[in-house]
């Protein structure tokens, strides 16, 4: 198991309680207010947390927040 390493900040409930070394995990998606049909069609998703435009050379979300901050998904467990 994970003796001392801590899981980066993630909304409660998006990760199994116990994480194993050498395993990859994808956080479980939580419900969030979907975008309007028009915005969703343009963004390619109804979920704001999934809007991940390719940013040449700069990581993180479109609005400039870095990956750790974005990782918190929508903050709602």
């Amino acid at each position, binding site marked *: 198991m994970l003796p001392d390493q801590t899981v980066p900040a993630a909304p409660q409930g998006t990760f199994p309680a116990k994480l194993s070394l050498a395993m990859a995990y994808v956080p479980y998606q939580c419900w969030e207010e*979907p975008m309007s049909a028009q915005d969703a*069609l343009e963004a390619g998703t*109804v979920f704001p947390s999934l809007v991940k435009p390719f940013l040449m050379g700069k990581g993180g979300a479109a609005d400039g927040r870095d990956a750790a901050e974005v990782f918190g998904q929508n903050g709602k467990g």
Partner: protein
Amino acid sequence: MAEMRLKSLDKMEKDELLRQVQMHQFSMHDLALYLDTHPTDSEALEALLAHREACERASAIYVRRFGALRKEQAEAENGWAAWSNTPWPWEKEAN
């Protein structure tokens, strides 16, 4: 000239209606994907049903005025001709 303008008005309305159908259809499918992994999420289901209703409303108007979007909607009175003879979306005449 008026005839030209009328035609383009019709075309604009047709495009707008089709966009409405596509918009709500996209949201519906995206929410359905979410529901695949979160089948008991009632908020997601509610959102999906709302988009489905909007999509059905827009496509009903579209079909009545501009013809079938899917072959199951092809009407009987003008037979199959309307479905197979109207320009396909990828054809120049349709755009």
